Structures are given as structure tokens and as C-alpha cells.
């Protein structure tokens, strides 16, 4: 299910893998090589054709954020201009009363 990506998958006790959830769709961050692709909007459009429901197109960062079925990852990654497709991770900081933040 995870595929053999060069960057591997996050692991460890602190990491809740979004792909392990029972939800039918997963939130994805699609990273685009902006130098290789004509326009980010065109890539986003191609991603939509592949089943991504686009939430945000981030032109300055070169990233598209959206949701798609878990099994669409390979297809999304094959879209021209896409360099990687990663599940959205959660990030959190310590609670306000912690001494170390």
C-alpha cells in the first residue's frame, strides 16, 4: 500500500499515519516541479482529472493540496510535473503551560 518511495514513510510512535485511517479519502500534498511544468494551474487541472479534489493551489510554494482516494496515489504521482505525493501530516506544539516549547 505504501509503495517504495525513496523518501520512505514516516514511522515511530509519534507519527499517526493518515493512510492507516479508515476514511475513504486521504488529504494529499502534491509537490510540483515548477521549473518543469508550464503552469501550476495546468498541473492542478491534470490532478483533478486523476481524481484529486483540489482544496488549494499554492503558486509561490509550488504545491497543490487536496483529497483523493488512497489508491490514487500512484496515478497522481504520474502526472507530468509532479515530483511527489505525500499524505498530509499533522503537526503540533506543546501545550501553553509547558516549560519547553
Amino acid at each position: 500500500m505504501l509503495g517504495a518511495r525513496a523518501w520512505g514513510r514516516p514511522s515511530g510512535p509519534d507519527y499517526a499515519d493518515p493512510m492507516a485511517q479508515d476514511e475513504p479519502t486521504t488529504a494529499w500534498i502534491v509537490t510540483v516541479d515548477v521549473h518543469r511544468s508550464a503552469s501550476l494551474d495546468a498541473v492542478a487541472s491534470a490532478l483533478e482529472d486523476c481524481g484529486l479534489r483540489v482544496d488549494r493551489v499554492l503558486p509561490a510554494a509550488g504545491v497543490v493540496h487536496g483529497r483523493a482516494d488512497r489508491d490514487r496515489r500512484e496515478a497522481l504521482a504520474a502526472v507530468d510535473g509532479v515530483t511527489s505525493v505525500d499524505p498530509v501530516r499533522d503537526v503540533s506544539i506543546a501545550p501553553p503551560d509547558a516549560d519547553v516549547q
Partner: protein
Amino acid sequence: MDAAPTAPGPTSTAETGRWLVVVDTDDVDVRHREVPEMLDAEGLSVVGYYPRLGVAVVERDDDRLEGLRLRCHERRRPLTLLPERTYQALDRPVDGTAAAGADSPTNPADPDEPAEPAEPPFADTAEHTWGVQAVRAVASGATGAGVKVAVLDTGFAADHPDFRDRRVTAESFIDDEGPEDGHGHGTHCIGTACGPRAPGTVRGYGVAPEAEILAGKVLGADGGGSDASILAGLDWALQHECAVISMSLGSDVREVHPPYVAAGRRALEQGSLIVAAAGNNASRSAGDPGFVGAPANSPSVMAVGAIDAELRIADFSARTLPRRGGQVDVAAPGVEIFSSWAGEQQHRTISGTSMATPHVAGVAALLAESTGLRGRALWATIVQEAVRLDLPSIDVGSGLTVVPPLERPAEGPAEEPTGEPTA
């Protein structure tokens, strides 16, 4: 080792009787055309002129050198005049007395120069936090004016009295929450990077007090966020052309996360520098040095470790992850840091690589203001200016981030000129 160019003198500090004319400017036309014309006009006997360097060697002639000095002063060219010295190849033990004694007292490379008022152990004073002192913010003469600093965090307490007259742009990337700070962490980080140096009621705690603040809320009141909110905030900061983007956040995962690598690259291409907290996953006293997590482990993101007021590595500060981009790049004050806080409390003292990161962001803003550098050049300057510490580089990178003291351009003579004015 290079041999000495021309070495008639017996010691490494012998003067040749000739003078060096240095015009330190990035204006190519000045170096290639104007300087040689001025040397010629003054009638100086030029031994050699190197337009790529803006350096000439001339025969000593006090009157003519004074004329050159006046002319450069009129034209506001940054002139320095120095006696030429001879040097020797460093293939034998350095003569300590000669090396230390003969150096110009204004030479910034002199390690014994007592230019910095504060030395470790640092301590908060009535005027400034130890962090503001340690990064040498005040002596820098810079304030961050004209530089946009984005802090992507839990938002900002816009009603904080210490920020009454500040220009702040705030935006939320958290669903169902406004840009206000429901946690405190964001207001603390913004305080360190861009807060006041003289708030009046308490000690000054801001490194770059005149920087323009962009507060991007990418973590909710519960301290939680996701790649989606963080990347949206990054994109927003880049669209606002922020020179510095500070991210006191991360996840304890070893894997480099591709979207941050790409976003960091886009940022550097666009003249923005992203600094991020190395992470608090170490417990050094228990033998666990931790590792730099994402996004700080991206090669295009500067990772910041935390040191204490005695310039020791903080117990929680994460160590370099042994892979490309996984290094700690620089260290900054991150233990017992006093800064602004949201709500009635208004101020708070806490620790973390989250507190170290905005110190670097503030330093970056000061350097961006004083040098005009952006992106990779700014990154290189931060690393170059850092004070090396007697600690492993895998913990502190290039050392304690500092801003160099204000450079007073060498314009004009010390005493008023008495010679004829040159038209």
C-alpha cells in the same frame, strides 16, 4: 601555502612604505572607471590597481593621499587607507606577539577585540533579555526596518500593548479560527523576532523591533496544524515577499518531507529565507541526543538549535540527523527566554528550539536590512557571522548567531580638512 608576495621585511608585520587604497563597493563602474581616474587625478604613483577588488597599491605621498580622501568623501565613496604590509607563508609556528600586537584595533577579525559588551554567562538585565544581548542586536545599529518577517505559528495577540504602534498583517490558515493567538506560542515567537527593545514596563526582548510583522496562523489554539495549513501559510508569506520566514514548529519524524524541500527552494529563489526549529526531541542528560525533524531537516530550510545563557547546548535541543539537509545549521538562545504572551499574562519565560528560531529570524532581518542580502546570500551571511562555539557542530552548526557591529563607512578624514577644496 602561498609565499609572501614581496617580502623584504623580517617579520610578518613589516610595512613596506607603500599604502593600500581600498574602495569597498559593489559598484563595478566605480571600481573599474572612477577609482583609477581619481588616483590619476591626484597624481598618485600607482604600483598596481586591481579593479575586481577595488584595491590599489600606491607610493606613500601624504598630501596626495589626503586629496584622495577628500575626493572620496565628497563623492561618498567608501575609502580605506592602510599601510601595505608584507606577509610570510604560514609554514611555521605563528609568532603570537607579532600577530596579536600589530593588528589594527579596528580589525573585526581580531578575536581579542573587546567590541562586545556582553560575554557569557549572559543574564537578563533591566534593559534587555539575555537573548537580545547574546545575538548583539543593539550593537548592530540595525532594527529590521523595511524588512518583512513572517512568523508561521499559533497567530498573534494583536491587542498586546507592547505592539500598539506596530504594523502587523495577520492571516489564519486554520479552519474556523481567526488570526488571534489562542495559545501564546505565536505571540512569544513574534515577540522574540520582532518585539520591542524598550517596551517601557519590562525589559526589551525583540531582536528586530522595526521589522514588519506578518503573523500567519498555521497552528490552532490547541497547538495543532498540518502540512496543509503550514504550506498555505508559507505560500502566503512568499506572496507577501517576506525576506524571512520563521517556523517554530515541526514533527519528530526523520524523513525529509518533499513539499518543504520544494517550498524552501522556491523561497530561496524568491529571496526568502525559511528558518525552522531543529526540534525538542533530545533528552541529553538521559543520553538521548534526538534528531532534527521535518521541516527543519530539509536542505533548503535553515535548522536552529537551542543554547543556554552559558552557551551550552540545551538538554532538549535536537542533534543533526545524519543525512543531507539534516544538520543543525546554527544555534541561538533558547533557554529561559522572556517574551510577549497572549492574554492577561502579557509576558512569559519559556524554553525550546521554538524560542531559538525567532532569534535567528530577527538576526536575519537585521542582516537583511544592513546588507541588503536575501535568500541564499543571507543564509551564507548568517552562517559566516555566527560565533563559533567550543561545541560539536552536529549540535550547534556554525555556532551562536550574531549580527556584526555597525560598520561606519570610512568616509573622510578624522580631522577637518585644511587643504583647498577640490571642485
